[in-house]
């Protein structure tokens, strides 16, 4: 290696190290501040009770309404988006294989809608609600968040399914498999852990978003009570608590953020476990 190559190597190595630690440091600061402010206010009462009267002025109660609401909404939307998104991703990669231009157009459109801010989905969901005569409700929230996370779900699955080697597809076709067998037996198995990551990513986006649910799911201090009733969500709960002038309530907002972070952590550890387990055994189904 010449001297200039050595310098170049050192320079870029340093740059990469700095960039990595910079990002890690910022993440650490965010998590630290959530912990630091949240841990003081978190309590059993907060996790197990709904807000009492005057909760937002510092009186008793908790955010169980928002925890359960967010879980119901995010699980519902993720499930729905998976049911719609999985076939779309498979269709793109298995059935449209001879139509590269159509695939390119669909991918482009999906990337485009991925970038639309969630408040626009919220507004769109709201106008749909009015059209169908629906009130702010869990159902309307689920539908809007589904629309919002669909492009994320489809494109991240699509990126994984793209990587199924053509040789493997040829091997499966040469045995006489038809396209649905290739889609459901070969593509889904080969990409199982990637599909889980896609679902997880969508779930994280769905549970963490405030704007899409603002007009559609509404807000309530009661526990979720059926698909057609309004439902509270953690992001909005955090927003309302942060807007309070009372410092104690602001700290509760951080505690709620901590709960949201932990939910995402638990869900992602759990699904990673499932993915790993599957890789070890490659379940026979």
């Amino acid at each position, binding site marked *: 290696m010449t001297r200039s190559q050595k310098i170049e190597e050192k320079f870029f190595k340093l740059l990469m190290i700095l960039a990595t630690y910079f990002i890690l440091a910022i993440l650490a600061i965010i998590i630290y501040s959530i912990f630091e402010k949240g841990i003081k206010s978190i309590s059993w009462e907060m996790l197990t009770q709904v807000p009492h009267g005057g909760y937002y002025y510092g009186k008793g109660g908790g955010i169980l309404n928002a925890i359960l609401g967010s879980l119901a909404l995010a699980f519902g939307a993720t499930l729905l988006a998976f049911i719609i998104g999985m076939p779309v991703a498979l269709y793109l990669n298995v059935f449209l294989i*001879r*139509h590269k231009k159509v695939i390119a157009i669909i991918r482009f459109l999906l990337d485009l809608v991925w970038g639309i801010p969630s408040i626009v989905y919220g507004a769109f969901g709201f106008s749909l609600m009015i059209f169908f005569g629906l009130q702010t409700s869990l159902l309307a929230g689920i539908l809007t968040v589904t629309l919002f996370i669909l492009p994320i779900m489809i494109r991240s699955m699509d990126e994984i399914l793209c990587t199924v080697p*053509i040789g*493997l597809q040829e091997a499966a076709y*040469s*045995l*006489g498999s038809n396209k649905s067998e290739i889609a459901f*037996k070969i593509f889904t198995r080969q990409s199982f852990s990637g599909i889980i990551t896609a679902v997880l990513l969508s779930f994280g986006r769905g549970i963490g978003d405030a704007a899409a649910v603002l007009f559609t799911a509404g807000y309530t201090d009661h526990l979720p009570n059926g698909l057609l009733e309004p439902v509270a969500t953690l992001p909005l709960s955090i927003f309302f608590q942060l807007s309070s002038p009372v410092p104690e309530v602001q700290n509760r907002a951080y505690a709620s953020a901590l709960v949201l972070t932990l939910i995402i952590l638990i869900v992602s550890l759990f699904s990673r476990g499932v993915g790993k387990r599957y890789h070890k*055994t*490659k379940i026979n189904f």
Partner: protein
Amino acid sequence: MYTSTKISIRDLNVSAGKTQILKNINIDIPKNKITVIMGPSGCGKTTLLKCLNRLTDLYPELRVNGQIMIDDNNILEAKEDIYKLRQQMGLLSQRPYPLPMTIYNNIAYALKLRGIRNRRETHKLVMHYLQQANLWDEIRTRLREPASRLSIGQQQRLCLARGLAVNPEIILADEPTSALDPISSQFIEETFVRLKHDYTIVLVTHVLRQARRIADNVVFMYLGDVIEQGSVEEVFGNPKMEKTKLYLGGTFN
């Protein structure tokens, strides 16, 4: 000696955009023989093989014209029974691609596609095909492991067993030993020689010694043209074309 023709290729042209990959190919492939297609890289051997079981359908950029008669059926015109048609042929590719499931299920999947669902029969046939591919003794205790854990050589033999399990009449092999160690390669070659009594084998290779060892019939291709074809004795012993002589002499690879 009279042998009947299993596959007859007439005026086959394949192009991708403006590039002509195969030019007016005419080949007769005899039944129950090993026909070796040889030639330097990029001469269209693999494309020719993919035409035979219509894997070319997966590549929209390829235009295929001409006739490929298998028995009395022009497979380039067959529309509906393409999946059935592919089952007449077992494919062995350059690199083994085990399906993402257990060793046992790799074979059982192929059997299911052939319509065998009975458990006992499946058991029996899985064992039978693994024996045919010379793999049974090594892996009989590991049938429930994922196929990806086998060595490359074992994976290739698993792929062969899987290809046989759909009960084909023809075996298509595309440089099946190029990724394998010498011992695994020998296993595959021996298996081919044993199998040719029941199957018609088309083998693509650029290993001349391999061609000489196991071929009955040889087709020499160069840049999309068939330069020479005939029995192995004719082509290796007394090549007629200048290009064949040069290739066999090792002048180009």
